[in-house]
C-alpha cells in the first residue's frame, strides 16, 4: 500500500454484477471492460463483496469465469464475514492461485440470503460473533504471509470506540487502512494520521449524489446538495498528501478521464 501511495496508484472500486441481474451478459461485459481499463491504467482494482448486503457475484469468481488477468499489485478483493467456511476457504484458495495479494477485510452488511461465519467455523474463541478481527486472525493463521490485509476505519463512529477497534484490527494483522468516505478535512482522520503508523487510503465519494452518504456519516445531507466529486478529490489530495485514495462509485464514462491528472505532488 505504501508503494501505491508513493506511485500515485488510485484504488478504483468496481462492483461485480448483482445476482438478480436481468441483463447478465451486458453486465459481465461492462465489468470486464472496467476491469481491463483500470488494470491498463496501472490503478488498483477493488472488488466489493456483496456491498450494502446486495447479492452480487464474488470478485474471485468474476476473475476466474471471465478469465481476467491479475497483476498482484493491482487487484484487491473485499472479504466480509458473510460466507460459509467452505466458501471462505475457496475464495482464499482462488486468491492464492491467481496471485491476488490484497484483501480488504471487513465485517460486512449481511443479508437474509447470506450465511454468516460462526466463531467455531474459524476457531475463534471467547466471542459471540465473527467480526473483521476474527477473520483477520483466521487468514493470518491459515495463510501466513500470503496477503496484505486492509481494514476499514469509520471516522463517523464514536471516536474512542473506533480507535479501540482499530487497535484490535492492527493487533490481528492489518497492514493498511481504508476509511469511510471523506469529503473535507476531518478531525478524526487527522488524529488517525497522527497516531497510526499504517498507510491510509481515504475513500473519495465520486457520485454527485452526496445525500446517499447520509446514513454513513450519521446526519442528514439534503438531496439538493451540490457536490463536485473531482474538485473534492483534488481538495483531498491537497489536504492529505500522505494518503492514498479509494474511489467509490467512479463514473467510468463521465469521470475516468478526469482523474488521470488529478493526483499531483
Amino acid at each position: 500500500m505504501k508503494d501505491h501511495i508513493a506511485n500515485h496508484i488510485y484504488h478504483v472500486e468496481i462492483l461485480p454484477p448483482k445476482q438478480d441481474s436481468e441483463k447478465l451478459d451486458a453486465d459481465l461485459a461492462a465489468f470486464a471492460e472496467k476491469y481491463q481499463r483500470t488494470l491498463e491504467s496501472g490503478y488498483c482494482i477493488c472488488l466489493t463483496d456483496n456491498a450494502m448486503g446486495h447479492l452480487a457475484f464474488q470478485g474471485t469468481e468474476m476473475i476466474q469465469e471471465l478469465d481476467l488477468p491479475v497483476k498482484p499489485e493491482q487487484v484487491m478483493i473485499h472479504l466480509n464475514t458473510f460466507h460459509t467456511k467452505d466458501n471462505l476457504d475457496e475464495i482464499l484458495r482462488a486468491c492464492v492461485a491467481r496471485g491476488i495479494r490484497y484483501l480488504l477485510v471487513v465485517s460486512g452488511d449481511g443479508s437474509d440470503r447470506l450465511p454468516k461465519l460462526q466463531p467455531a467455523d474459524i476457531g475463534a474463541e471467547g466471542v459471540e460473533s465473527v467480526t473483521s478481527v476474527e477473520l483477520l486472525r483466521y487468514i493470518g493463521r491459515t495463510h501466513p504471509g500470503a496477503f496484505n490485509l486492509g481494514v476499514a476505519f469509520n471516522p463517523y463512529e464514536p471516536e474512542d470506540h473506533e480507535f479501540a477497534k482499530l487497535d484490535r484490527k492492527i493487533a490481528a494483522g492489518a497492514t493498511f487502512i481504508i476509511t469511510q468516505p471523506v469529503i473535507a478535512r476531518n478531525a478524526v482522520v487527522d488524529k488517525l494520521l497522527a497516531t497510526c503508523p499504517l498507510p491510509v487510503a481515504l475513500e473519495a465519494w465520486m457520485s454527485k449524489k452526496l445525500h446517499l452518504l447520509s446514513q454513513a456519516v450519521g446526519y442528514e445531507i439534503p438531496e439538493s446538495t451540490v457536490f463536485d466529486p473531482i474538485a473534492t478529490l483534488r481538495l483531498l489530495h491537497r489536504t492529505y498528501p500522505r494518503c492514498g485514495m479509494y474511489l467509490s462509485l467512479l463514473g467510468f464514462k463521465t469521470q475516468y478521464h478526469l482523474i488521470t491528472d488529478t493526483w499531483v505532488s
Partner: protein
Amino acid sequence: MRIVVCIKQVPATNDASIDPETKRIVREGVKAILNPFDTYAVEEGVLLRERFGGEVVALSMGPPKAEAVLREAVSQGADRAVLLSHRAFGGSDTWATSYALACAIRTLGGADLVICGKQAVDGDTAQVGPGIAAHLGWPQATHVMKVRDATPQTLTAVRMHEDGYDVCELPLPAVITVVKDINQPRVPTLKGRLASQKITIPVWTPETIGADTAKIGLDGSPTRVVKTEPPPARHKATRRIEGTADACAAELVRELRKRSLV
C-alpha cells in the same frame, strides 16, 4: 434418488396488490421472484442429491416468463427443469395446480421425493404440496424443518409445530413441504448462473402430461374468491422507559418477562 422440487414465480411481496374487481393478485408490471420458501426446497433437494446421488428436477407451472425462476433453481444446483405452460392452465386454483403438477411428475417417470416450499407468499394457502400428495396417493409431511435421515426406501423428517416438533418416518415416494429453518440456501455462483442460461427448458402442455382438461384451469378449480380484504391493522403501543440505564434495563427485563418474551 430422483427429487422433484416444485417452485413458483411470485410477485415481490412489497409490490403486491389486489385487483378490487377480480379479487386476484395483480401480477402485470410487478417484479417477479422465486417464491422465497421454494429456495429452501431447492437447497434441500440439492443437499439430498449430494448425499444420496441422483438428480434434482425443478418443476413449475406458470406463464412463459416463469422460466426465469426455473433457471434460478438450476443456478442453485438443480440438474434440469420443466415448465408447465399453456392457456388451459390459466386460472387454476391450488387443487387444479396440484393435479397438473402431479400429472407432470408422473410424466417425468415418477420421483422418489417431491419437495415444495411450505407455501407461496402470494396465495399463502400451503395447499399445493399436500394437493400433489393427494393426487399421487403418496404420504406427505408438511412444515419439515429437518430431514434427519433417508434411505432409498424411507425418509425421516422433523416437522415444526407452533409449540414444538415431531418426527415422522415416511415410506418413499413421498411429498414434503419445508420451512425456512431447514437449511441455509447457497448463493448461486456465476458459473451456475451461466450454466443455467444455456440449458433448454422444455415447456409442457396439458397434452404432454396427459391431463384431463376438465380438471385444470378455471373449469377444474372449485375455489371461488368471494371477497378479499386486508387484515385489521395491528395495534402498536409504545411505552417510553425513563430513568438511569440500570433502572431502564431492569424495567425492560421486567416488562419482557411479564409478556413471557424472555
